[in-house]
């Protein structure tokens, strides 16, 4: 009896092995393990066996039933996986087609540079302020120690509105607005558009500046130097050489211009990057700060110039032509 059981097992396994589909497996399951299967027949005959054989045969028959059942299940799983893989691999999607895609947006390079600069100063604890484009003579000139007949007015080719107001020629009026609105200490930067009525290949009537102002007790010129060296090294690279050169602005004293050395293959040249200085005591008087108690430094730089250096742009007019093929590059 046991032999016939083993025979059933082996024959069944052979058949299961040759199954081609999960449907085959289901069929084989009922064929080998169903009520009319040879195994069922053996189990049915057990009561007719001698008592000592009954348990042996019965136990073995059950074992085989378990084994076959597991075997079929396993075969079915294998076949299922194969079928899934087969059907998936016949997917006709062309994955090389361009996807459904929104275009890449882009920030104007002026925005990118402005944000870079603001981020560096925010690490030093400066907050960002804005001021109006249309200014009164007081904020743009008078309070900055540029009275009406001051020679420095010749440095500013000013646009006037018909109502006698000016389009600000620099972002420095924001200094005045800030100081008039709050007590020292002050630590601000102010990015924005400025206007000069000289347009040629290298000048645009509208361009962008960032102004910075730090006022507190005991600030020194060496603080100005350290701050701007930190800033320029962060912006342009720690290896850059920086020099401070004497200059003149009516609202700072001493005044400097700051040059950065740029090296190309076999020559190096100094490029003027920004202006700075210690706040003129007359400016403090205009904003009712006590010039004997407080000192401060201010600085300003042209954003276009930085963008032109960083991105190697050779024509300032590209910024305002606003061709998307230009802006998309940044």
């Amino acid at each position: 009896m046991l032999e016939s059981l083993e025979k059933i097992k082996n024959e069944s396994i052979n058949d299961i092995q040759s199954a081609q589909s999960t449907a085959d497996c289901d069929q084989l399951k009922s064929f080998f393990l169903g009520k009319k299967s040879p195994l069922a027949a053996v189990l049915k005959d057990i009561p007719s066996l001698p008592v000592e054989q009954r348990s042996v045969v019965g136990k073995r028959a059950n074992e085989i039933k378990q084994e076959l059942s597991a075997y079929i299940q396993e075969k079915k799983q294998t076949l299922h996986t194969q079928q899934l893989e087969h059907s998936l691999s016949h997917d006709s999607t062309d994955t090389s087609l361009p996807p459904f895609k929104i275009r890449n947006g882009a920030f104007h390079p002026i925005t990118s540079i402005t944000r870079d600069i603001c981020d560096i100063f925010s690490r030093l604890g400066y907050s960002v302020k804005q001021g109006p484009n249309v200014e009164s003579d007081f904020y743009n000139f008078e309070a900055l120690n540029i009275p009406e007949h001051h020679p420095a007015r010749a440095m500013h080719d000013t646009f006037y509105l018909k109502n006698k107001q000016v389009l600000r020629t620099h972002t420095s009026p924001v200094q005045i607005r800030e100081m008039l609105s709050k007590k020292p200490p002050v630590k601000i930067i102010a990015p924005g558009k400025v206007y000069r009525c000289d347009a040629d290949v290298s000048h645009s009537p509208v361009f962008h500046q960032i102004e910075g102002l730090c006022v507190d007790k005991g600030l020194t010129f060496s603080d100005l130097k350290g701050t701007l060296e930190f800033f320029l090294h962060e912006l342009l690279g720690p290896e850059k050489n920086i020099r401070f050169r004497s200059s003149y602005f009516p609202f700072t004293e001493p005044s400097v211009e700051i040059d950065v050395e740029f090296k190309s293959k076999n020559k190096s040249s100094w490029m003027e990057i920004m202006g700075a200085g210690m706040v003129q005591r007359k400016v403090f008087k205009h904003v009712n700060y006590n010039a004997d108690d407080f000192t401060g430094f201010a600085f300003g730089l042209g954003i276009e110039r930085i963008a032109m250096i960083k991105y190697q742009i050779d024509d300032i007019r590209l910024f305002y032509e606003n061709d998307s093929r230009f802006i998309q590059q940044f």
Partner: protein
Amino acid sequence: MKFSYSWLKSLLPLTESPEDLAEKLTMAGLEVESIDSIGTCIEGITTGKIESISPHPNADKLVITSVSDGKNSHQIVTGAKNISVGDIIPVSLPGSVVASGMKLKQTALRGVDSFGMLCSETECGITDESEGIWILPSDTPLGVDFVEYAILKDSILDIAILPNRGDCQSIWGLAREIAAITGETLSLPKVSVSSTDIKHSYSVQSQSSHCPLYIGRYISSINKAPTPLWMKRRLELCGIRPISLIVDVTNYVLLETGHPLHAFDDAKCASKSISIIESTKKHSLTTLDSQKRSCQEGQLLICEGNTPVALAGIMGAENTEVSPDTSAIFLEAAYFTPHIIRRSATLSGLRTDSSSRFEKGTNIETTELASQRAAMLLQELGQATVSNHVITCKDNTHELFKSKSLPFDINQLNSFLGSNHNENSIKTLLTTLGFTIKNKQISIPSWRREDISDWPCIAEEIARLKGFDSIPSTLPTQHIIQDQDSLELTLTRSSEDFFVHNGFTQLNTYPMVSEDDIKHCKLSTDLSQYGLANPISPELAVLRPSLLPSFLRIISHHSARQQHDCAFVEVGSHFNDNNEEHVLAFCLTGSPYENTASPDQRSIAENSPFIHLQSLLQRLEAQLGYSFTLSFDSPDSWHHPVQFQHFSIGNINLGSLALVHPSISSQFNIHHPLAFGHLSLTRLASIVATPKQYRHFSSFPSTRRDIACCVPKSLSYAEILSHIHTYKHKSVVDIGIFDLFESEKLGPDNKSIGIYLIYQDLKQTLADEKVNKAHQRLCDQLVKQLPLTIR
């Protein structure tokens, strides 16, 4: 301003090369913009006298000359036409090099040996083109080193003089500055005039406070001598054309001292009564450049009798111009205040060597010295007689005549700079610059009185001359807590980010537009307020009332270049009713989607840019934490009559979004549907966003019910929705649309809308019957209130 290196070198020993000197000047605030090297190749040119001229045996156009250099005679063949025996000329002998770089060799011309070359001005490097040989004055010594004699080799430093450094607008002033920088000793020419008791009838009267000092000298019997070569050359090197001795001397003194002088021809002055007046519109004069000029109010004039004879400080008039025959002059040396000259020069549109010096300020206390120096030179070079009756018209009370001093505290200066300079070295430095320090007081030299106004100016002098390198670099040690960035700035950044991340390109446009473009956009502005008084072009003449014209220009630029997809954003300023606002502007024409094999998304956006922008704006609004009220009434002038919406919060209008009316966009050659929106961030920032707050959500299942209905086309979704909101059951948590179509079956005036509602309760699973009942009640209400049939 141009400065001759060799001239400077004659005033103080310079060991620096022109390049090194330029570097030092630049660092000290006298920025050298360029160095022009003159006669770099020239070598060995000398002077000679033509002893004889004989014909060339083999050539008609050549002659054979014999030239003596004082020691030897040289046979030189030349083709020159303008020479005659006895002329003194520059000559270049074998071994010397002329301006072109050619080295002279002994040569034979048509069979006759020639030992050198007679030189023209071109060969000497002083002009680009010249005719004939340079005939030198008859008193020129023979055999001199002509390169040095005629200053053929030099470096011209072009220096940008800062507005506060009027004192450096002269060779003497610059030399003083160089002495302080290099530590060398300055030696200026001694000025002394021997004057004679000669009477004249001149009188001077200043009627303007803008002329606190006027010095007049009468100088007569001036010989008609030519200007010496060295003076001519120095004038030329500094960019001034030599004219005649009298004019050249005044110009030379201008270069030396920085004081503009003017010589009036005595013979042309009838009344000898000189007055300085502020002009009225009646006055006019013809200046030396032959321009007839009508005077403007407030220009300063010099009059002789009642006739204007000079635009003070700028240019003289033809009526009293000195000529080659002039033998007597009235020499003016005066101080005019900087701003009157700046104003006058601006009004007449005329800037001269003279006006540019007065504008930055001349040294009032050396005006007399300049007058003496000119008299001395005329005496030396033209054997002139100088009258000792000098007229000085002076306002002694003027601010500039007062001496000025400031406290001097080296500790204060050092702690301001953060430096550690030694007191003695600072004192030496300042003394070289003309300051005197005594008892903790520093007195300011007259030529710096306008510039040096407070002690930080002294700190600047120290810093710039000791070098900024000598100051350490530190960071402020105090910790300053600063304000948070303004809400407007945060909104600006967030909305820029949002649009760029959704495929938009950020623009940066000029806030000025043309008047025409404003009209084309059917916008209006108050030109008396926002028109520019001095625009550089009609395209940039008005501050814009909206970003629309700027955007239309940029889109037009793109469509002319076959770039039809324009998804642009900018936060910029617009100007209305005395108010400048920051506005978020955005536009869409074409599609923000790239081309794909299935063009659905692309074409949806392309055909309905308005709807596309609507969806973006709604997402932005949610992200910023606001909820706008939309209104669909009364389109703006640039709006499409139907596709537009206004948005507001409370009673604050924030902006609008619309399809640009095709009659407007077509004026800019834009022929595709274009949607444009603007949102005032300035106004939005005045409203506090709804703060975020947790709301409990239900853990019980939800159930959906639909309303499919047929309505007239004129009934808007918004209206249906507002009715649903009125009559809905409280357990409705979401409402949306899932279907919209028109068909023949519905008829031409109707549309079908499918709306879903999600019912959900916070505390229990809703029973179907309850939902059905609530939903039915809603449907009944809708049918009752609206022209609506449930399908």
